[in-house]
């Protein structure tokens, strides 16, 4: 008889359990433990995909619920308030319309293009840039200046008086007209969220 078989038959009550134990240890180290760490990664992967799916679904539901006509109006309003590019024509018209309402005359106009924010990005967000405009108005007093400012805010909401000197029926005024090129990475983002209360308030406050 084979000596190994003989040995086995003599000690099978001890050898078999030892083999079982060795087998169990082998399975734990070669199969169970590697499989466990893969499972953890797989679970995390599944959770992130489910989260992404939820984001997609929420985005779709939000977009579907929007009224097309209202959205068109709001986008037009926002674009008019903050144009995507420098528009000297619109700036000129806004100044002339406001001067006319203030019953004064535009005598001179100069435009300079410049960023008022040297660091154009703050935390990845782009800030509005300005067209620097200098004007001279004739036939302007303090009351007419008030009318001019109020009118300009309606003609071009994102414009501001940087400095002004109204004296002897003349007005020397430095104006800023804001504009902002489109941020395509923001526009193309997949996560669509509802307008915040602050954004809605801003939309309501813009008046032409």
């Amino acid at each position, binding site marked *: 008889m084979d000596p190994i078989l003989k040995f086995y038959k003599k000690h099978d*009550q*001890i050898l*078999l*359990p030892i083999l*079982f*134990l060795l087998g*169990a240890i082998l*399975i*734990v180290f070669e*199969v*169970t433990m590697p*499989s466990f760490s*893969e*499972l953890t990664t*797989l679970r995390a992967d*599944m959770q992130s*995909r*489910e989260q*992404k*799916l939820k984001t*997609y679904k929420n985005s*779709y539901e939000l*977009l*579907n619920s*929007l009224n097309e006509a209202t*959205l068109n109006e709001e*986008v037009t309003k*926002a*674009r008019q*308030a*903050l144009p995507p590019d420098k528009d000297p024509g619109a700036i000129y018209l806004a100044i002339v319309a406001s001067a006319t309402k203030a019953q004064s005359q535009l005598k001179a106009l100069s435009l300079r293009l410049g960023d008022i924010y040297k660091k154009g990005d703050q935390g990845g*967000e*782009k*800030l*509005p840039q300005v067209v620097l405009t200098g004007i001279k108005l004739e036939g302007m007093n*303090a009351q007419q200046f008030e009318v001019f*400012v*109020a009118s300009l*805010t309606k003609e071009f909401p*994102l*414009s*501001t*008086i940087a*400095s*002004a*000197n109204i*004296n002897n029926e003349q007005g020397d005024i430095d104006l800023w007209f*804001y504009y*902002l090129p*489109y941020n395509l990475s*923001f*526009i*193309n983002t997949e996560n*669509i*969220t509802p*307008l915040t209360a602050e*954004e809605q308030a*801003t*939309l309501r406050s*813009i008046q032409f």
Partner: protein
Amino acid sequence: MSDQINLLKTEKTVRQKTSMFFNICLGILILVIAVTAGEIFYRIYLNTRINAVDLEQQETSQQIKHIDAKRVKYQTLKERLNAIQKVYPEIKKFSTRLSELMGTIPAGISVTNVITEGQTIEFRLYSANLASLNTFLTSDLNDISKSKGLGVSKITINTIGINLNPAGYSTSVKFTFNK
């Protein structure tokens, strides 16, 4: 005779212990196999779910693509509003402040000059009546400084003078606002 009895007892104990050891080891092996099989089935289940989620995500993405124009408009709106709210509150403040300050100038006093720069607005005022000017400087300016709505942080009276032509009195008042 007593030795044989003792031997039998020992052999029985050894067999029992060996049998218990065998059962324990077999139990451990079965448990490990069961746990490993459970892990394998769970992994298959997770993979199936991931595939289903991916498919659903692709379908939803396709649905969003059909309304892509709407998505672009909406994101453009959000993008504009995000930028507008960074500067618009400050812009509105100037127009409001100017109107409110002009509203505080009483009858009998006229604003002959306006100089503005940054957070300051300066008025040059003229009045034919010294009493009116005096009331404005001593009482009205006090009210203006206390008005929280206006947000005036400082009022500086720069000059007070007598005008000869036209006859009257003039002063220069500078208002500095909180940012």
